């Protein structure tokens, strides 16, 4: 492979001529494209100059484009060509010249951006309410036709989002229990109130941290998976196929996920609470010398059983919310892969934000329930 080169020659007839030779291809020119172009450009200004391209061995479109640009985007009829290369130059000549559109600076763009965001938010709210409505309609339909209740899908959701999440929720719960117990025991010890670690851990873990932690974990773990599942089904037109077969995607995809998470989340929460209390008890034993059996047996005396119910109701609400939000964003995915990733992001962020918001609402609603005064 010989690199393309250009030489300025004077023919016998006294004409000045540019003779190009060698390989004018991307592979051979790659490193020196810019220099080659400038060299060509500098001589091409002279219209009297003849061009001789006959000695070019190989010409590809990059090479031809360089020569073409040096000519100023115009055919030189006087150029001497190798017959094999005529077609390439003809192809280039046939491309219509389109100037790239320059984007003008739009001063109103930030305002338009806010407006579009606002519009999109309302769109989402409306679509979410519509989804809820469709779900209610389908629930009534299924109540009337119980044979069509998608039991298999419901149990699959409970297994995937619940049973398979048990190790990670136990681990996280246990560690949180250890950390809270460890961090508060010092303060309690200074006041001689070490024994109150049981009240502290009992209330904070059962009522607050257990359900919240599990909800956040499940939103990240199963919420994203649900959005991806439905989103990919949209991209591959599987949802459209379902609809044409008369299968309602709401009752086959959304409902099982909502019911499954509504069942799974309270159960997983109780499981995580147990792990967290165990972690707390072990750390309390190490730091304050409180016997683990004593810790567990005095727990019912200081934390009312109502807290378990509050935790379960919270977990149930969180589970339903996560599933609904995940399905909502999954169904709103546009049929391209780019849209799936942004749908998953929105789904997880919205689900976690809503869970924390709901948690605050619960804190206010149940402020006089579950405490011994």
């Amino acid at each position, binding site marked *: 492979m010989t690199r393309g080169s250009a030489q300025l020659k004077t023919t016998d007839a006294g004409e000045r001529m540019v003779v190009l030779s060698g390989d004018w*291809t*991307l592979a051979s020119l790659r490193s020196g494209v810019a220099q080659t172009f400038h060299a060509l450009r500098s001589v091409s200004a002279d219209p009297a100059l003849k061009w001789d391209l006959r000695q070019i061995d190989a010409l590809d*479109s*990059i090479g031809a*484009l360089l020569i073409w640009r040096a000519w100023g985007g115009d055919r030189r009829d006087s150029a001497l060509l190798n017959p094999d290369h005529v077609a390439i130059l003809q192809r280039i000549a046939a*491309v219509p010249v*389109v100037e790239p559109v320059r984007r003008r600076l739009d001063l109103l763009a930030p305002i338009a951006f806010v407006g579009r965001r606002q519009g999109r938010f309302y769109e989402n709210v409306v679509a979410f309410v519509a989804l809820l409505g469709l779900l209610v309609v389908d629930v009534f339909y299924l109540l009337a036709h119980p044979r069509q209740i998608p039991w298999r899908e419901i149990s699959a959701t409970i297994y995937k989002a619940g049973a398979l999440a048990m190790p990670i929720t136990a681990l996280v719960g246990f560690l949180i229990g250890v950390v809270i117990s460890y961090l508060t025991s010092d303060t309690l010890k200074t006041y001689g109130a070490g024994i109150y670690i049981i009240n502290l851990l009992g209330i904070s873990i059962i009522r607050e941290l257990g359900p919240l932690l599990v909800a956040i974990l499940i939103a990240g773990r199963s919420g994203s998976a649900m959005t991806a599942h439905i989103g990919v089904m949209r991209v591959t037109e599987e949802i459209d196929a379902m609809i044409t077969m008369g299968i309602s995607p709401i009752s086959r995809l959304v409902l099982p996920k909502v019911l499954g998470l509504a069942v799974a989340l309270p159960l997983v929460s109780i499981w995580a609470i147990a792990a967290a209390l165990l972690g707390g008890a072990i750390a309390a034993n190490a730091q304050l010398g409180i016997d683990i059996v004593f810790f567990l047996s005095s727990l019912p005396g200081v934390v009312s059983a109502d807290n378990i119910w509050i935790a379960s109701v919270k977990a149930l609400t969180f589970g339903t919310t996560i599933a609904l939000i995940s399905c909502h964003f999954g169904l709103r995915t546009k049929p*391209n892969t780019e849209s799936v990733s942004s749908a998953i992001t929105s789904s997880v962020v919205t689900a976690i934000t809503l869970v924390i918001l709901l948690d605050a609402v619960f804190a206010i609603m149940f402020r006089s329930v579950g405490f011994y005064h």
Partner: protein
Amino acid sequence: MAEPVIDIRNLWTRRGGRIIHRDLSMQVETGEIIGLVGGSGSGKTSLLRVVIGLDAPERGTVRLFGIDPLNAGREKRLAVQRRFGTLFQAGALFSALSVFDNVALPLRELRGLDKRLIRDQVMLMLHLVEIEARDIDKMPAELSGGMVKRVALARALALDPELLVLDEPTAGLDPERSRSFVKLIQSLSLQQSLTVFMVTHDVDTLSMLASRVVVLADGRIVADDPLDQVKRNPHPFIASFFATAEPLPQPN
């Protein structure tokens, strides 16, 4: 330069315990247009994937331009990869990039071409595949199936490859576009000594383009000849393949 562009020797591939190719050997010389034919599941696409280095063979070697890309160093492999362009069955356009950027990507990856040249090359390639200038800012999701295919072909051609590997290039194109595709490949292969290795079911494309037809059946190559000769081959798959392709007799 006498080196074959593709040199497959004693290739065995296996996927999930099933042997897909048994002892395949074939060579493709510069300037040839090879049509690879076979029933569904006969391992055409698998062979294509092995040739372009996406899958490793179980046994045997595949050399492109005299180099075994899987066992060459990174630089050498990259040099080989820049010498061929691939058109995937479903286009495989980058969904996050516009039509223009999809075609420009391989050129930009070279680092060293200036913006104007990249733009000119992209516009030339898009013009070749008959994509109009008003469509260049569209995203792949907004394109029709045939357009996706044509943009993907433009991307495969962007680096002026010496070898073009095509998986079902005319599937999903209307007859007119198929014909202009055939014309484009013909003119490119004449002018730039382009070698083409394509999987196709389209007998029209085969008869107009292929200088040689390779038939895969039962994991083996059962025919490797010009089309006229292949058509006379008594192998049952070949007989039925070309029998169904003959036009049905018209009433009246």
